[in-house]
């Protein structure tokens, strides 16, 4: 683990919106095969950082390196083909499509048939391709245990299931690096435990490197290999979870001065 080459590196990334500094000189690197968490108080720039990696925002300064390649200027739609998938903090499913179709959209860059061969379906090989990918998608559906809602319109599902469908869609991209923006937000304890298990499994069994934003410190401490802490758009600590938690800057900035008061408050969420 220690010697593994970084799959993703943020190199002195700054992001400004006019006068607002969302990120200032943030650097960190994610090693291949690890679960890496970005934590920090609200407004610390965690989602901005993930948006820089997924291509929603372009950093004002600095570079994003993916597998050693500079992707700072690569359009967001081309990053899926490079091997970056993501989920969103506020659900971003295709509400009127079925769960199955939502996940199949994740296969977009892996499918080859254009609209003409698609319209011919039986003649141009579109059917064969669809069925082959359907098989692989079903494996993801099995893994996340969403077989029963396969055909339901995604917009009609309850919140916890939608989160899972979104994870399934991101997995369908076959990413080397998967970005999870608050995968456990708004979930109850049981759903959180399930989600944590899925994340560990997709890391260990599916071989995806995970970059995750999460507020639930219990989960972060339990499953992350390494953590970076942001505060007001600056990196204040990076390292193994227990190291980071012991860091005095982190205790002050993130957990507050009187940590025995804020610690239980975290659990209430």
């Amino acid at each position, binding site marked *: 683990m220690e010697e593994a080459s970084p799959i993703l590196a943020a190199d002195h990334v700054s992001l400004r919106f006019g006068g607002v500094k969302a990120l200032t000189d943030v650097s960190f690197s994610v090693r291949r095969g690890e679960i890496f968490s970005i934590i920090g108080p609200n407004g610390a720039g965690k989602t901005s950082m993930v948006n820089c990696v997924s291509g929603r925002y372009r950093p004002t300064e600095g570079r994003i390196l993916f597998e050693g390649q500079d992707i700072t200027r690569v359009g967001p739609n081309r990053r899926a083909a490079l091997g970056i998938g993501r989920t969103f903090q506020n659900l971003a499913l295709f509400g009127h499509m079925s769960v199955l179709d939502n996940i199949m959209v994740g296969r977009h860059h892996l499918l080859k048939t254009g609209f003409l061969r*698609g319209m011919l379906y039986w003649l141009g090989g579109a059917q064969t391709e669809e069925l082959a990918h359907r098989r692989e998608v079903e494996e993801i559906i099995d893994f996340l245990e969403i077989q029963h809602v396969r055909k339901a319109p995604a917009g009609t599902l309850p919140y916890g299931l939608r989160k899972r469908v979104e994870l399934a869609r991101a997995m369908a991209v076959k990413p080397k690096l998967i970005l999870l923006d608050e995968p456990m937000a708004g979930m109850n304890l049981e759903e959180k435990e399930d989600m944590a298990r899925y994340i560990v499994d997709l890391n260990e069994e599916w071989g995806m490197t995970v970059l995750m934003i999460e507020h639930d410190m219990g989960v972060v401490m339990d499953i992350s290999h390494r953590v970076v802490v942001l505060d007001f758009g600056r990196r204040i600590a990076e390292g193994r979870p227990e190291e980071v938690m012991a860091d005095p800057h982190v205790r002050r900035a993130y957990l507050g001065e009187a940590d025995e008061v804020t610690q239980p408050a975290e659990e209430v969420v």
Partner: protein
Amino acid sequence: MANVSLLPAGDYRTTYRADTTIFPTRNSRIALWLGLALVAASPLFFGRYELSLLINIGIMGIAALGLNILVGFTGQISIGHAAFFGVGAFASAWLHESFHIPVWACIPLAGVITAVVGLVFGAPAARLKGLYLAIATLAAQFILEDFFARARWFTGGVAGRLTEPLTLFGFAFDREETYIYVVLFFVVVMFLGAANLMRTRDGRALVAVRDHYLSAEIMGINLAYYRTLSFGIASLYAGIGGALYAHYLMFVSVEAFNILFSIQFLGMVIIGGLGSIMGSLMGAAFMVLLPEVVQSAAEALSGSAIDRLLRIGGSISYLREMAIGAAIIAFLIFEPDGLAHRWRLVKAYWKLYPYSH
């Protein structure tokens, strides 16, 4: 109720192939073949007038399906669809007359030409959304209308252009009784094409762009490409519809493809159901048959006490326009998902009857 599955209880399909059929139930397949057989046999029991209505429904249905792919499936807007319909009509007539290409080849070629024109006018769609795009397509409508009036080489100018009937192996499809088969063939091909498109990669990409373009982009979908492509496909359908229209009427006039006609296409799509393939055909049928119903209602009324009171005798044509407007408003209020949705509800009701709760 709205989400009642129309499948029989239990899912007994064991292959992914069986799970991806367009018509999922046996009853729907029977209904399909029955419908096709009825239309194919219609010259036996329908007069020319009824057949002309059927032909119109088919032609309008193809063009409306194109607009539905653009508006209903991709979430774009176009108020210039009739202009593209016109491009197809003139292109087919022009191809036949200038290059002596047989008409059966002119119709698909006219579709391709219209698709190219649509891609050009659809280019702003890569960047514009909503009202701004609506105005850009409005510009396309007026530019093309003006082009029709001026480009004598293409349209015959204000005099219009005569067209030839479709002939195949020396057999001329020049009457309603025969032309209905041409239209039926194209309806089947174009509707199957759309249904296939929507269950494959690019169709899903179009719907993804409509539902959540930000996450679509993250999933690897090139937004500009698909927004423009959707205009191309919509124009392809409009062009083929227009070409069929030209070789049916045997005369294409410049004034036919005005903005009112464009709005009618939008009406068909809204009434039929945005984002529904069969809905496009239902909407077209509604729009073609509504004036007939209003007409006969007005004729039944003429001379009656109401007629004497309101003096509608001379204003039947206004009544028709009003009925179309009223129908669109009524659908927007009471059935925004269109006839296709209403039809699903009816089917679901009968599936559960009499235990609907």
